[in-house]
């Protein structure tokens, strides 16, 4: 069971890295989403999948009875999902913004000395696009 999920994680990582190395902002964005999913899944799988009962204490009991799923990695993954989401959103905005300022999604064509040179020409088109 764990072995096959481990392979899925590996495939997600491989696809994510492949897209991250694509030098295109949109593909890199997809790669980041895949990597984020891969990491969450990996933490979950590493906690063991032998028991599938949710980690809940039945009403009336003060300690859990039967063996249940590992609660600790679940808590970690919950945190990781939310933090990953926050970082992804920031990356999206950053990519969007750099496209606006630099005028390309191809990282090879971005000017090395930053937006200073690229900004004035881009600025006019941006304002027209956005409108009042």
């Amino acid at each position, binding site marked *: 069971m764990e072995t096959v999920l481990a392979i899925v994680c590996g495939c997600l990582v*491989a696809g994510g890295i492949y897209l991250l190395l694509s030098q295109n902002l949109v593909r890199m964005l997809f790669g980041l989403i895949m990597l984020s999913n891969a990491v969450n899944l990996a933490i979950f799988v590493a906690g063991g999948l032998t028991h599938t009962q949710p980690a809940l204490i039945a009403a009336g009991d003060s300690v859990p009875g039967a063996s249940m799923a590992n609660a600790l990695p679940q808590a970690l993954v919950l945190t990781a999902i939310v*933090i990953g989401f926050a970082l*992804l959103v920031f990356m999206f905005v950053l990519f969007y913004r750099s496209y606006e300022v630099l005028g390309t999604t191809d990282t090879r064509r971005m000017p090395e000395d930053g937006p200073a040179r690229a900004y004035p020409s881009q600025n006019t088109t941006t304002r027209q696009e956005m409108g009042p």
Partner: protein
Amino acid sequence: MMAISTHNHRSNPWPGRLSALLPLGLLVGLVFQAPRIQSGRPLALAFEWVPGLNVHFALLLDGVGLLFALIITAIGLLVTIYADAYMVGHPQRNRFFLYLHAFLLSMLGLVLSNDLILLFVFWELTSLFSFLLIGFEHASAQARNSARQALLVTGCGGLLLLVGFLMVGQVTGTYALSELPGHAAQLHRHSLYLSILMCMLAGAFTKSAQFPFHFWLPNAMAAPTPISAFLHSATMVKAGIYLLARLHPVLGGTPVWMTTLVLLGAFTALWGAAVSIARTELKSILAQTTIMALGIMTMFLGGRSAPALTAAMTFLLVHSLYKSALFMVAGAIDHQTGTREIEKIGGLARFMPFTAAATLFATLSMAGFPLFIGFIGKEIMYKGALTEDVFPGLAAGATLVSNALMTAVAATLVLRPFWGQPRKVHPSGEAPWQMWIGPLLIGGTCLGFGLIPDWVGHWLVEPAVRAIHVTPVDVELKLFYGFNTPLLLSMITILMGGSFYVFRRWLRRRLSQLLPALPITTEGLYEGLVAAVISFAKWQTRRLQNGSLFQYLVVIIGATVVSVGWVFLGSAPLSALWNPPEFPGWLGLLLIAMLMAIGIVVQARSRVLAICGLGVIGAGAAILFLVFGAPDVGLTQILVETLTLIIVAIVLLRLPPIEPQPDANRLQHTLRLTLSIGSGVLVSAFLIAVTQHDVDRTITTFYEQASYIQAHGRNIVNVILVDFRSLDTLGEITVVAVSALAARALIRKKRSAP
């Protein structure tokens, strides 16, 4: 606001003046300890500092420590008074006094430490404050460069010194200086002896400006003159001498010690003395003679006879006195006339009588005229040189020539500026009293000590020599030892010095032609080394930080895959991990759907298709969470995935379509494939290896047991998040908030941009 605060600093001299109480108090305290030290009972104080490493905050006041501590506090006091007038009106006046006294305390700590590691800490602190004080006029590029050079040279020496100290600790098992002489035989026989010695000498020679590290000291004259008088003649540069004296009973007495110290010391002395003749700027001349004096002391510490060590300790005292006085005089002349060029000034004695008197006393001591302490110092030097174990002839010759040149320089220093006809530059009168009282007191001491040499020997020199000599010795300083070789050599010195003075212009001309013609200098080597390091750094920055995001990612991912893969696969081959997976059919369907979705996203030409693929992957993960007992995680995953995809869709609407963008060349494509497959394989292998062992559920069990009893919650995952690890959750919320703010700022900036 700025102007007002600057004005306040300028007009309030009292913090600086009151700070003179610090050296005064310390000096009085030390004087009261003198009888105890003289009777051979050192004062010790120790606290545990880092007991795990056997490092103690241990202080010890013995003969050597007392001699140095008295010099530091006495000259520190006079320099503080002097600087009160010298720094008048300087906007950073209070900072100057702060650095000055911080240095004074570090230097005191250095000479009082009884623990090698503590000594190292103070050693580096003195280098640091020297750096700050040389670069005090930080608006000047020359001051900054000199400060950096001094810091680099003494700092590198300091690091080697630390290595030496650690090796001593390894060999002897103790860092206590007072216990080390007991381990001398063990150290001498040890195979690390030579390495230890070289490290120690590197530390001492860089600090005390010995050849080939002498070049930083003349450049350090960029510091304000009170600093040159205090740090770069009387105290800090003597730290190397102090270390050599301290280590003498521990590492000294071997042929390599004696040869190295005598040869390098003699060469440094002759070099400094010769170059000083070629200089015409007061501070420059004094810096070169300081190098000469330090060379002489090093040379005498190379000996092991009582006269050689007595000569080193006596000359230490003699030199500290006359040299600090002369530096203060140089500053006073500069202050009153605006120049330090010796050829531009003359006849100052009638305008500046007190300064002239101070100079006269100090230079007479420097030249070694009878009745002055310098004379006694010179007598004992010749006696010491003749008892050196190695090269006594060379030592005596080097001493003779250096002393003769010194006499000529001393004559130049007092006769050129103060006597003769007034030259181009006229002084504006006598310097403020703060600026001549110190030199005059020191000059008077040079004479006073010369009149009571047995008192000086009894109270100052003998305790110091006893602390560094293996067997107890009696030191007798006398005005007249009888007609013997040293007296004859003293007479020859004065005659030679006189003739050098007469021919000084010719000597200066020849030397000024010779010195720039030298094909190679150690300063040139140093500059070359620094330039090489900088150009290497530039080259590698250009190579590594070339602005290509692709290359950065390749380096980061490649380094991770290769280094982790190397270690991991070396210990567990892939084949050992493989066992045929078993899983129910419905799971197989789900996984196949996810793998296909990965393929679709990777190959996608259409944005909508890619978003669908990402949706399948996210939903698949959510189903896996749900099935394997994590409903909370599954729900969160669905929620977050939905939000993510909505935002992606919004962002993609504003980005251009994904154009097919082939890799630039075959190599790039191969790299991409290799790295992505490599990292995928590595992650899979890791996870398989991890899951092959039973998971340690100790912590989980604790949460399961405590969830209801302690936190009154039945959903264990939720209890962990909001109760046991609530601070983590707070951190998580903070990340979300910061990220939202940053994203908002990025969008806002565009709208408000002109």
